[in-house]
């Protein structure tokens, strides 16, 4: 219940701060609209989908354009899903790609 509430709250906050990335059936939004974070700052990225419940969602997260941090496929069970949460102590680039049958979205930070 607690986790559900915190994910929903995150979704509301992110909707206010969101950057739309390749908006169609799928969008990625992140904590900081600018994509720039301080050392150690928590980063959270949500995927928002519309009418894609029970579709497959493929997520890939790249660090520095060449290291795969996450590569997985999951089922969409709600309109929003937390797909990445981390912090970093060194400068780096992170690219998050989300793909469904009818669309894809990519965001960088």
């Amino acid at each position, binding site marked *: 219940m607690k986790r559900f509430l915190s994910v929903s709250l995150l979704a509301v906050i992110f909707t206010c701060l969101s950057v*739309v990335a390749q908006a169609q059936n799928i969008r990625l939004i992140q904590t900081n609209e600018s*994509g720039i974070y301080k050392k150690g700052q928590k980063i959270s990225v949500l995927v928002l989908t519309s009418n894609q419940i029970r579709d497959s969602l493929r997520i890939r997260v790249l660090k*520095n*354009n060449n*290291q795969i941090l996450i590569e997985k496929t999951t089922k969409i069970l709600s309109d929003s899903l937390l797909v990445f949460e981390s912090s970093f102590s060194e400068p780096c*680039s992170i*690219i998050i790609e989300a793909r469904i049958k009818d669309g894809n979205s*990519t*965001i960088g*930070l």
Partner: protein
Amino acid sequence: MPLDVKTAPVADTISEKGFSCVNVGINCLGPKPARGYFAKRENAAPKSLPIVLLVHAAGDKGPWCCSEPVNALTYAKMGTLCFDLNAHGMLNGQPESYYAGLESGVLKNYYLQGVISPENFYFKGMYQRLLRTIDFLTRQPEWDGKRILVIGESQGGGQALAAAGLDHRVSAVVAIVPAMCDWLAPHSQRMGGWPQPFETNASKEDMLIALPYFDAANILKGSKATIFTEIGLIDMTCPSTSVYTAINQSEGEKIIYAVPYRPHHQPQNGMTKTWEETVYKPRELFIRNYLK
């Protein structure tokens, strides 16, 4: 080497009253002359105009690779001495077959030619043409003696950064998703900038010696030019880390537009309007204000 400049008026521009545009070839150390179009307002007072140097993205035959009189005239009408320089010393205004012939011939994979040799690496000639053009422009009596703005995207952005690092008369740069940055990044488990020479099969040992001479991440040390840059945070051709690595070497003011939704090309798919309002227009405003 004394300057030897050949010019020819551009016929289509004769109707541009008050402005001249010439097709220029400038002799140069290296394999090819610097070639482009140079435009300015006629009868401008001495020491009254800034310089704008336009440099081009990768390739040989696409419209984005070729110099055009309209490019030079556009900036000349903003009150500048403007040179639209093509990257390869190509003849200007030729039929498409000429450029196609270069692309499949001597300029095939130019960006990796001579990659293991500081003497023969292709970018040596490109940078020599850049510097020669700046020498030509700074000899124009109308130059105000203070402002040289170099503008380019991708390979053009890399050339703009190189110009700022190699010639400290360059006072400002607009580098859009710039290439030629941080080539030795794979040593630090990062992807390097285009054309990613260190990711090829050429001798790593030789490239460790050759590449730093031409890498903006090295060249920009000590530059005091103002750098206005757009960085694509999902750019897989000129990675964001490569651009930051390069511009962090510069000592001048940095105006950075890091765009979370920008790949190497201009944003599409519904982001165009956002990008135009929040990135493109501020860039144009910066240029206009810098040239006032």
